């Protein structure tokens, strides 16, 4: 999974005096030993709004590669989401495979928007049925055995 491909080398955290604010670590991804690494910088954003994130997920056509519920499509499943919020933001800024998933600048997609999308993905119900419990898939499994 995406989260497993990232090695966090440096992370600074700070405590904000603004109530309700979160500290996220947006990253600059470099390469060390062939693995993407994240150098940290601190950004403070409010909590994500799942409904706004749902609209952004559509407007930015995230569904194109990941499906409307983050479960289908040609690219990694986002439901259930295995990235932390800071890892999610860092991934957008410096994805390890930009030919597949291009980097998105702060000017194009703000940290706030990314946190909203993150909140949306976290809000999605997760629990696709097991293949054995789906009759048509179960029958295909029996054909193979």
């Amino acid at each position, binding site marked *: 999974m995406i989260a497993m491909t990232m090695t966090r080398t440096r992370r600074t955290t700070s405590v904000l005096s603004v109530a309700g604010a979160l500290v996220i670590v947006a990253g600059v991804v470099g390469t060390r030993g062939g693995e993407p690494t994240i150098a940290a910088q601190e950004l403070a954003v409010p909590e994500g709004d799942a409904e706004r994130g749902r609209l952004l997920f559509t407007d930015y*056509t995230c*569904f194109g*590669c990941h499906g409307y519920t983050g479960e*289908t499509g*040609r690219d990694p499943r986002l439901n259930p989401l295995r990235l932390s919020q800071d890892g999610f933001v860092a991934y957008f800024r410096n994805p390890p495979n930009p030919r597949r998933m291009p980097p998105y600048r702060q000017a*194009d997609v703000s940290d706030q928007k990314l946190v909203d999308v993150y909140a949306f993905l976290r809000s999605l119900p997760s629990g696709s049925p097991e293949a054995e419990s789906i009759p*048509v898939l179960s029958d*295909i499994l029996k054909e193979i055995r």
Partner: protein
Amino acid sequence: MNLEPVGRGGLSGGAAGARTITISSAEFLIASNFNVNGSGAGQADILIAADAQASLPALIEEVSRLLTDDRRRFVEDRGTQIASAHAERRRQAIATARYGWDARPVSMARVAAELWPLIKDEDWSFSSPQGFIGGWPGRLWDMKKSYHAIGSQGGGGIGYSLPASVGAALANKQHGRITVNINGDGDLNYAPGALWTAVHHQIPLLTVVHNNRAYHQELMYLQQQGAARNRGAERAPIGTTITDPNIDYATMARAYGMFAEGPIENPGDLGPALRRSVERIKSGEPALIDVVSQPR
């Protein structure tokens, strides 16, 4: 000898030092306005313009006659390994197909999975490309015969699937074979008159519209390019999405006189609708099901 199909990507190579012979009807298109052989043109030692399906049985028989016992065991072992690998890949596909099973829009994995039990005991043919539908028929279905996967367009353009499928289904009809076409919605709009042809000649073709309401390949490409060139991605849907209004493909098919159902948005409605449409094509007429679907 290395017997290879020749496609747009050219020859795929083979054993070092092997001589390559191709047998393909693509050579009959040598005067067409596109290069059917792609980068592989001229790489074979012998290019034979012929019908591979008609030619191969005699060739296989001759090769089998010449096989030594050692080579025969080698071929059998390799066949066992390939069968095992294929079964494993099919198991993996099933494990993936369950994701988004109940999602709306309907997942393309579910479309293919629901179709399979309806056709697997028939003499069937799949006529359309699989690149834009997640490759699900090839991943889930047991494709054993050449006509189980007829292939893709030669030129990479759009508007291929429907007229090609009508032609394939016409050829299949004489063998009592049913044909299935999973057709992109943008693609379908390029030559919808072929729906009339299918009805007029009573050609048993099932068309399932993969209705993701977009020229989705272009949508994804523009989004990728917009982000890569720092132009933002918000405008990628302009000119690439097919909404406002949504197109009602079932009504469109009915206008051509074809049995049709849809738009199907509830995944639970998919299986019964497909069953009814397969019954239609088994009785010798074409049918269309419009499925509002996930992008891929």
